[in-house]
């Protein structure tokens, strides 16, 4: 066999392997990363919905969320000041570095961030959201079977009723 062709083939294989590796790392940047543990955060933020991973919002957004807990998306989620400050400090330490603001104001909803919209817009059409076991984008655990453990990897996604066609 032509040695040049062999070298080229080897180079191509390396390139493909490198691309796969890079892709799996970027996928893990959001999907596979473990959520750092903080019992008070998990307990308090996980009472009414999954405790959303801190990296999904910027520190600015978390400060805004935690400043309005007495009117938290239509419900009173108020905390004692000491617990609130402790959890906010954890959220700030682990917040995402992406800007999650719109029109100069920090977004409060994870589901409105550019990253979330991009990840879910095509994969989760309205029909899937209407399914009784899904109901809301706030219901992470409906499809992300590891959500309660902070695992959002692609391979752990189970859409109730199956993937849309």
């Amino acid at each position, binding site marked *: 066999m032509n040695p040049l062709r062999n070298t080229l083939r080897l180079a191509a294989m390396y390139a493909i392997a490198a691309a796969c590796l890079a892709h799996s790392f970027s996928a893990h940047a959001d999907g596979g990363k473990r959520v750092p543990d903080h019992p008070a955060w998990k307990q308090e933020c996980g009472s009414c*919905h999954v405790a959303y991973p801190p990296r999904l919002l910027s520190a600015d957004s978390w400060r805004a969320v935690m400043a309005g807990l007495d009117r938290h*998306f239509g*419900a*009173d989620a108020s905390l004692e000041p000491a617990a609130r400050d402790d959890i906010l400090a954890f959220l700030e330490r682990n917040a995402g570095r992406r800007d999650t603001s719109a029109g100069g104001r920090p977004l409060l909803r994870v589901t409105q961030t550019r990253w979330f919209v991009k990840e879910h817009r095509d994969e989760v059409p309205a029909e899937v959201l209407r399914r009784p076991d899904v109901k*809301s984008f706030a219901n992470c655990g409906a499809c992300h079977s590891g959500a309660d453990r902070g695992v959002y990897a692609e391979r752990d996604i189970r859409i109730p009723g199956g993937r849309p066609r």
Partner: protein
Amino acid sequence: MRIPPFVLAAFALAAVLPTVAATPAQFLDAFAREARQADTAFAASAARGRAFFSASHGGEWSCASCHTEKPGTPGRHAATGKAISPLAPAANPDRFTSAGKVEKWFRRNCNDVAGRACTAGEKADVLAWLLAAK
């Protein structure tokens, strides 16, 4: 020997806990006692508690919107859909055993359902109904 701070903290917590932890019956007694300060004839009523629990109080939600009419069974958060473990102590022995949690959830949920704090009498009635529920 130096004692690590977290060990000291654990001892401090253990010393405080017995005064914070309680039983559902103790909470019922405490709310009823408080209600009698305003109305000396007050006696907790499971029937009144049930009615309060099922009624909407001018807002969108009732207690039963999330906890269901049968508090011995699991509920579901009306907005997020998250599962809620049963509220009746007979079905869930963790309920009404922590003063901090009792205070926090009555504060939040009364505000959500009634748009105000619940009275001690209302809390005593609801607790009487929950203690009777299987």
